[in-house]
């Protein structure tokens, strides 16, 4: 086992945790996912090509583990995005933005399908370009863009409803 590999993984942990939170929208499971991802990474270290991006490799591992988890009966049910309404944008302002907590944002993300959350987290949270996100998720860049656009409009709508409609508009986990 290479010490360098472990040390690099340790350095990545904060970003992996952040990605896992966005991907799962489950604060109670995000660290479990990271832990399972680290364990898998150590057993499959030989599959990683030195010189390629370890972060992308790890994000892929987390995403695959999460998909496996959902397929094997994990509790998340993919939510059908509601028809995107024409939000009255005048009600959305910077004041509203400033009041949004991580909890609210994560709850709203929980309403999106996992594939949308993955791309949303990579681009808007981790700061990857469309091209980088496409490489990380191994999908065409056009897929990244259509998922991302859809996810952001849906999120905008959900956050708006949640922030202006009180509890009734909040997305719920589980």
């Amino acid at each position: 086992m290479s010490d360098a590999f472990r040390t690099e993984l340790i350095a990545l942990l904060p970003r992996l945790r952040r990605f896992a939170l966005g991907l799962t929208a489950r604060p109670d499971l995000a660290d479990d996912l990271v832990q399972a991802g680290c364990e898998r990474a150590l057993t499959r270290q030989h599959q990683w090509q030195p010189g390629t991006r370890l972060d992308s490799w790890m994000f892929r591992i987390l995403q695959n583990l999460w998909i496996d988890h959902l397929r094997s009966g994990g509790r998340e049910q993919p939510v059908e995005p509601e028809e995107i309404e024409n939000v009255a944008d005048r009600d959305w302002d910077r004041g509203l933005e400033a009041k949004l907590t991580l909890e609210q944002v994560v709850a709203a993300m929980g309403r999106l399908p996992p594939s949308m959350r993955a791309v949303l987290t990579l681009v808007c949270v981790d700061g990857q370009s469309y091209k980088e996100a496409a490489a990380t998720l191994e999908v065409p860049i056009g897929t990244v863009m259509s998922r991302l656009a859809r996810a952001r409009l849906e999120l905008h709508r959900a956050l708006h409803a949640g922030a202006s409609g009180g509890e009734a508009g909040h997305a719920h986990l589980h």
Partner: protein
Amino acid sequence: MRTYTDEQLMAYADGELPAAEVQAIAAAAAADPELAQRIERFAATRRVLHAAFAPTLEEPVPARLLEALASPERKVVPLRRITPASWVPMALAASIALAVGLSVSLWLPQAGPAVAGLPQDMAALGEVLETRASGEPQPVTQGGRSYEILPTATLRAAAGWCREFQSTLEGEHPARARGVACRQPDGQWQLVAVAAAGGAAAAAGEYVPAGAGEPDLAAGLGASERLTPAQEAGLIRDNWRQAPR
């Protein structure tokens, strides 16, 4: 008037549009409030997501994750079996100091490293790394023992600002350790790697010869760059406020 797809407007808001198309959209948005509003939704969601998740990067990493990376023999628990109720509090984490490889050990943040030559209290070490230039030895007295801590280099690494140092226990049973610590967002210095050096016996009883045979402790930091004395002096003077990358 030309119509734009959501993807185009999003790419514009994200700065991902080819320069040739940027001007056209900017002009169209200036003349069309509805178009500007569509663009603003993408800009707003990016701002919100970025801001909401930003503090998560600075949270301390749970000990169990560090433990998972430190002990390969640990049994792999399938994710689906893990429920919040079964989480084990990691109170024992502080006692774990797992040897990785023969000569380099990774330590949990709060664990008092048991390598001879290194003071138990990390705060004193952190103080020296925070404030002293490379090449300036600092005496530290702890538990009746005298140590000399010598920062040897400052590195710009993927993990942030890191420093290499040497710590020597003086007195009847002298011992020397070399280590690398990285500065955390909260200002704490976290030990990333440590090895006994200079003929001292390591905790596990391994003898690590000084010089050529010693492991490069900073190798695990990924691509790292050594700072010049002037750059380092600037960082220390500025309380490490400059972003490492």
